[in-house]
């Protein structure tokens, strides 16, 4: 007994001396002593606190919901039963008959695409007013030669993201060429046009930031908005008055709530993918400065299609491109290559090189496609005739199609992207281009749906338009309906036929095509009544 006690006291002593040998232990001991003497309760509290801290640290994060009030405790056997019982839905919903028919009847081009490609199946050569070949660069022999030479130097794939040896000199060259062409400080290249804008938006706009967007922005922008998790306000499609009201409303709200200053963005498109209408850039710039917003402009369809040499909206309206904070464009559509870009100040570009998800986590685009795009820009720069021909062709089309009164064309007169919609048989006030009467109340900015929503029968109109497409194809002209992800878009788009005019056609060919389309439209749509 005694021996044990002695041993205990000895070990306690060694422990104590050992403890005091540790650096800083004196301080700790003094603190504990004095605190305990002053207030024993405090020591108990501190010990509890310590235990709590240790427990929190040891607890894994994923286990957090187990303790939630909705968690139900099951025994192992019950879980087994539940697992056995559970039958999941099939992974894929089968396509509807119409969808499979649509998919099966998709036109497939055999060999090179271009103004006059051959179709698989019929083997017929058709006039192509469906593909994006606005500038007619597809099939350009000079570009092909340059690309072939580049292939012998660079190979095809870049085999890595830009951070890891994927920044090839031709990418840097193309970025500089784009920036020079548009007149911005710098630009950054993404390897797919569709992924560009949906990556640019969340790179800048985070939770708590404010985005004011047009109600008719394209699908890629919608996805970018969704990823950004920002506060989103909508203004009526291409309605600058509505935009100003929304901006004013937000200002009021901020003043009222005294919320801290956050980043604020206006997002809209140059030429809208959904209907081909065009944004009023000068007014946008004016509002942007007035309310201190940054402007994200998606020029996917206006870059390379409007302006004297195809520099896009900025050239058309004679606005310096540096006024637009983030100018997004496509290398795939007008330059007939692949990828997209975002041009802006060097700070904006540098930020994306680290924060642009689709930039950082994706392999850079193949070198030969960069070379092709650089050559394409050089060609556009040197030959304004391309754009003037394109505009001439657009005018030819519009002059013929505008006369038809059973259709509506919401597209801008200069837009080479021409959407043709069926004119509603009934009320004339529901024209998509009609500006809502000023007397009516403005739309709710928090809802993506406008106040006076158009009503249309998607299925019936799609069927009619498809009939036109098929009829026109039978006459050797390839056009397409605008394909949509029904049910996934933020608001349904009115079905339309989407024409893509190219500068590769002569005036005569355009006249002939437009007449064929017009006749067919008249024929099919008259049956409806």
């Amino acid at each position: 007994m005694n021996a044990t006690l002695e041993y205990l006291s000895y070990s306690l002593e060694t422990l104590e001396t050992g403890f005091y040998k540790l650096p800083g232990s004196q301080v700790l001991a003094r603190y504990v002593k004095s605190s305990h003497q002053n207030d024993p309760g405090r020591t108990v509290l501190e010990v509890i606190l310590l235990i709590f801290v240790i427990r929190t640290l040891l607890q894994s994060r994923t286990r957090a919901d187990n303790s939630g009030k909705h968690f139900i405790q099951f025994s192992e056997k019950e879980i087994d039963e539940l697992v056995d019982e559970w039958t999941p839905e099939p992974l894929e919903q089968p396509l509807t008959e119409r969808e499979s028919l649509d998919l099966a009847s998709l036109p497939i081009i055999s060999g090179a695409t271009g103004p006059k490609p051959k179709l698989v199946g019929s083997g017929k050569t058709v006039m192509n007013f469906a593909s994006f070949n606005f500038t007619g660069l597809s099939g350009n022999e000079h570009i092909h030669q340059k690309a072939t030479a580049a292939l012998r130097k660079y190979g095809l794939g870049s085999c890595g993201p830009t951070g890891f040896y994927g920044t090839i000199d031709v990418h840097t060259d193309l970025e500089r060429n784009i920036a020079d062409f548009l007149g911005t400080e710098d630009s950054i290249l993404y390897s797919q046009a569709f992924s560009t804008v949906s990556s640019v938006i969340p790179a800048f706009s985070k939770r708590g930031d404010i985005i004011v967007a047009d109600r008719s922005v394209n699908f890629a922008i919608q996805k970018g908005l969704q990823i950004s998790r920002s506060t989103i306000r909508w203004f009526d499609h291409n309605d600058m008055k509505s935009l100003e009201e929304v901006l004013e409303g937000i200002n009021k709200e901020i003043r009222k709530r005294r919320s801290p200053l956050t980043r604020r963005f206006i997002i809209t498109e140059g030429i809208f993918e959904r209907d081909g209408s065009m944004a009023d850039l000068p007014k946008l710039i004016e509002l942007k400065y007035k309310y201190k917003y940054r402007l994200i402009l998606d020029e996917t369809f206006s870059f390379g299609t409007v302006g004297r040499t195809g520099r896009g909206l900025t050239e058309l309206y004679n606005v310096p491109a540096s006024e637009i904070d983030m100018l997004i464009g496509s290398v795939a559509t007008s330059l007939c290559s692949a990828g997209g870009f975002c041009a802006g100040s060097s700070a904006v570009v540098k930020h994306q090189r680290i924060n642009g998800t689709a930039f950082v986590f994706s392999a850079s685009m193949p070198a030969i496609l960069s070379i092709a795009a650089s050559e394409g820009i050089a060609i556009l720069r040197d030959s304004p005739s391309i754009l003037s021909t394109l505009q001439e062709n657009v005018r030819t089309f519009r002059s013929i199609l505008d006369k038809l009164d059973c259709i509506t064309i919401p597209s801008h007169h200069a837009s080479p992207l021409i959407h043709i919609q069926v004119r509603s048989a009934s009320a004339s006030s529901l024209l998509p281009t009609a500006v809502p009467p000023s007397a009516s109340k403005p739309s709710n900015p928090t809802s993506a749906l406008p106040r006076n929503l158009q009503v249309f029968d998607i299925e019936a109109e799609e069927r009619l338009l498809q009939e036109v497409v098929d009829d026109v194809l039978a006459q050797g002209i390839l056009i397409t309906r605008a394909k949509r992800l029904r049910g996934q878009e933020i608001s349904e788009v009115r079905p339309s036929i989407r024409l893509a005019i190219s500068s590769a056609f002569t005036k005569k060919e355009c006249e002939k095509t437009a007449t064929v389309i017009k006749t067919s439209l008249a024929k099919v749509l008259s049956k409806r009544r």
Partner: protein
Amino acid sequence: MPSPIAINPVSPSQSIFKKTSKSPSNLPASAASYLSAVSQADAHARARSLANVVTPTSTPALSMSSSVTVLSEDSILREGEVKMYDNDDGLSYPRVPPTSEQSFTTAHSEFGHCANEEYRFTSQHPVGKPAPHQEEQDPPYYILLSTYISFMILICLGHLRDFIGKRLKPSAYTHLQPHDGWAPLNSDFDSFYIRRLKVRLDDCFSFPVTGVPGRTIICYDRDTHDYNVTLHTTGRRTRGLNISSYNYLGFAQARGGCADAVVESISRYGLSSCGARLEAGSLDLHQTAERLVAQFVGQEDSVISSMGFATNSTIIPALVGKGCLVISDEFNHASIRFGVRLSGASVRTFKHNNVKSLEDLLREVISQGQPKTHRPWKKILVIVEGLYSMEGSMVNLPKVLELKEKYKFYLFVDEAHSIGALGPHGRGVTDYFGVNPLSVDVLMGTFTKSFGAAGGYVAGKKSLIDLIRVKGHSGPYAEAMPPPVLTQVIASMASIMGVASEPLKTANDVTSTALASYPGPAPVHMLPSWLDLPPLLKDGSEGQVRLRRLAFNSRYLSRGLKKLGFITYGSDDSPIVPLMLFNPGKMCVFSRMMRQRATPIFIVVVAYPATPLVTSRVRFCLSAAHTKDDIDLILTACDEIGDWLDLKQGSGERWPLQQIMDRAVELVHMDMD
């Protein structure tokens, strides 16, 4: 620090080789023209003259026992970029010149010459054996402690600099602070990590490069006057050994059967298909490629997307939505997370590659149902990667499939890195484990890595793929894949598979042929009629050599590093070998020391946020293009630098460097743990 085995430029063998290479027996005209334009000849002119020289009959191909003696004159000429006729970087010529028996038609700098049949291995998991538990070694505590302290010092210093900087030099901070009613694009808090930590390493990232990212790569030298805030190129270029590009099978080549096919396709198809797949952007080539991909991976059908990242981010929303649950590995790629967020489905994560954690989670979520309502989940999709690009670890597929049987979830395997790189036939992780690819619901992969192309695919049942075609975001909105890229995919894939000379009998039914002949050769009717591959590619022998070289290289480097005492993660068969550095300060030193060697080696260092904070690492990406000499070079370099930086913290048996290099074959075939 000269390397002991750094290749001596004036070694006798070298000079012999140089003599032969300079001898004007072959292609005198072009050689002369090259000599006259040694240093700064116009690149395009050069390429053109080369194109004239190379006749279709001398199409470069990897050949072991050919009688054609096309000693790679062309390849040496192509070295002209930087150092034309000397080998002081030790990369332009093989160390041992080829004998008269051998002939290599690839450029040694793109695809290394290696005739030794011993340096081959098969990437395959022994059937019946459980997947090895990939244990991750922890470093000694003092390493962890010093790592934390380093980060603490960096963070404290950064804040101190910000504090003082804001007072002494406010102009440098205006863009980070609200001014004049504008919120900063990037606040000083958000950008702290980038401004104060990453910038110190910036000279190790985003190298501007030129040329083919093959066995070697040419980097532009960079310099900085303001501590990495701005980097500018000096105008000089350096060729170095490329152990960083995702070029697993070495198809990054400017010459060879695939490149020739691409050239042919540019003249036939042009460069773009000018539109989305559903809006007149579909070419016959797309259909051909999709059928071939399905055949390659052993599924009914496939759909191709023009960007690897977008493949995940645009198709996952077509598979799941509200009321569905996605269970995702914690280290899944950003594109998967992007896609899941777009889909609106709920997400839960499980511990990396931990089957137990996955099972626990499955039991919990199935029994609990949806949060709050407790309704059963509509469906559960488990998303894993075949090979994790940062860890080098492989999914334990057999185990996951067992769970799938029991818990009835759907399985999505992202084979971005594993397709082509794993398995005896290169068909990815299913091939490696010898499981039926049809047991996986969705097989996704990319073409950037093994095939030297770009973009990605999803393969699965026909009905599923049709759904993705119609409901996936890329169908109506994203540009279709450009024809040259499709051609590279078709050509490289066909040369891995080999081409069956006789068309199969049931050629009309795509599904049944695909299933019957997996993992067999590609039926000739599935390829474009104009595609003319050189014989070695056509019979699949070169593809086999590539697969076997990659498997050898992967094992050799991974095991060599372990035997040297380094801590590496992941599977031995993975072509991605992460070497742990832990300390953030060691990253830039390692990277700089590697590229300043007599034979520069270009490596990738990865740190937070791509990896957990403490496990900074070097990531080696092996390729079939590397030779054993290249791996020896890397091991030697790592050995020296590892001693300097105190990196050899691993446990287990150690071998001296020379022993590793001598017994390489034995090491690779050895049964370890």
